[in-house]
């Protein structure tokens, strides 16, 4: 009980600080700390799914994205002090678009996690075993209420297109901070990258039975992508090649096609035929969301690999 109160108080204080923090940078740090404390709160309330989502999306990737936007803002202000407003509003827009998408995603998780003895929850617990899934949240997200999830993936897509539309082609050279020239980074990347990949795939796979799933996995992948971009192993490209574009839409597309396909063979719309479809959809979602986040971070239409 004491811990509950403590966490709640902490959250209130942090949210307040993040919103009215004296300097922007302090506000950002407060925001990230807020994300972490929220993670702890979810964990304490016994919902590791939400804790994961919050840690990965709320604190991790959003933190990184806000930081890069902050950096760009300062840089733009320094370089073109006369009329920073269009650029400013562009960036603000990108952040806000992103925030909206993320709020939606978190809301999705939050609602799907509402349990207790509510009618819906009771029915779900009776129905879940039929689906072969062990994780009720994945059940809700991919099987029972998959229309929500489908549309949420479309939200991410729309958010990205909106941000892209706002940034435009000339923003292919949106500034990125130079990679820190320290010998530590290469070994760090080399070690972290494979491990992150494995953990991400694990989270995806585990999602059907245990906490985890596409959203968390994609956030982890996005974090990896951010690391690669920051260390200069992956650079921005001026245009999105078809692979990038395909990657962006594959989540939505696969989801829709599976749903429509079921309709064609006479099953209800968006009925999920089996656990393999869950994996297929989740994998596609992971790719799309992860790629979207990395592209937003890089601020470029496409990505190109570089060997250092």
């Amino acid at each position, binding site marked *: 009980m004491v811990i509950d109160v403590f966490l709640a108080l902490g959250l209130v204080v942090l949210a307040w600080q993040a919103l009215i923090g004296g300097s922007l940078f302090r506000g950002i740090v407060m925001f990230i700390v807020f994300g972490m404390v929220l993670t702890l709160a979810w964990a304490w309330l016994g919902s590791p799914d939400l804790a994961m989502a919050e840690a990965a999306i709320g604190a991790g990737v959003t933190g990184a994205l806000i930081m890069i936007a902050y950096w760009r803002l300062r840089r733009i202000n320094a370089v073109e002090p006369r009329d920073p407003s269009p650029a400013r509003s562009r960036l603000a827009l990108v952040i806000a678009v992103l925030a909206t998408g993320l709020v939606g995603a978190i809301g999705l998780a939050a609602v799907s996690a509402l349990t207790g003895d509510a009618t819906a929850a009771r029915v779900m617990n009776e129905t879940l075993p039929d689906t072969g899934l062990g994780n009720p949240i994945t059940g809700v997200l991919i099987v029972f209420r998959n229309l929500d999830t489908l549309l949420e993936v479309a939200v991410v897509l729309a958010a990205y297109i909106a941000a892209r539309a706002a940034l435009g082609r000339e923003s292919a050279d949106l500034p990125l901070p130079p990679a820190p020239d320290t*010998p*530590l980074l*290469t070994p760090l990347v*080399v070690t972290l990258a*494979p491990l992150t*990949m494995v953990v991400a*795939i694990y989270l995806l*796979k585990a999602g059907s039975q245990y906490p985890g799933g596409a959203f968390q996995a994609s956030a982890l992948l996005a974090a990896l992508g951010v690391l690669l971009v920051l260390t200069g192993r992956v650079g921005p490209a001026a245009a999105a090649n078809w692979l990038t574009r395909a990657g962006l839409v594959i989540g939505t597309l696969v989801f829709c096609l599976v749903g429509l396909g079921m309709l064609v063979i006479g099953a209800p719309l968006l009925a999920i035929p089996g656990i393999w479809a869950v994996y297929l959809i989740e994998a596609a979602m992971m790719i799309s969301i992860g790629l979207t986040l990395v592209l937003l971070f890089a601020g470029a239409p496409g990505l190109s690999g570089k060997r250092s």
Partner: protein
Amino acid sequence: MNRLSLLRAGIVLVLLVLVWLILDGLDSLLTGLVAAVIGASLFVLLHVPRPYHLRIWRLPRFVLFFLVESVRGAVDVAWRAFHPALPIVPAMIDHGVELPAGQPRMLLVSVISLLPGTLSADLDSDGKMLKVHAISEDPDIAVRTLQAQIAYLYGLIGTPRP
């Protein structure tokens, strides 16, 4: 890709499978293998080939050294933190680096921060000069000892003593 790289990729693969096992157990080893292969190929894409490699049998010794030193470091800093007089004497020293680029140098830079009284503060761009921030006496000795230990671990010198 030369044999050494292949070997390294193999080791990474094994390690990643191990990580998978830790995470998921034996339930779906096939997926784990796929994941590990993807991870290992990422490693192959990213890694920079170096002419030296870690001598596994010398690892326990280094780990022991590291554990003992970092516990000492922690105790030392805890003592200083709780001491009413706050007995710290911040100083900055420059220290030459003899270790080659890559893992050895990374290990030096990171582990130094865990040893008693030392903190790696900056490494110049060609990696030959390390700035060490110290809050206790004799940081030089600590750095030198660590360098020797790492060099020994990678088979660059025959003895772990400086």
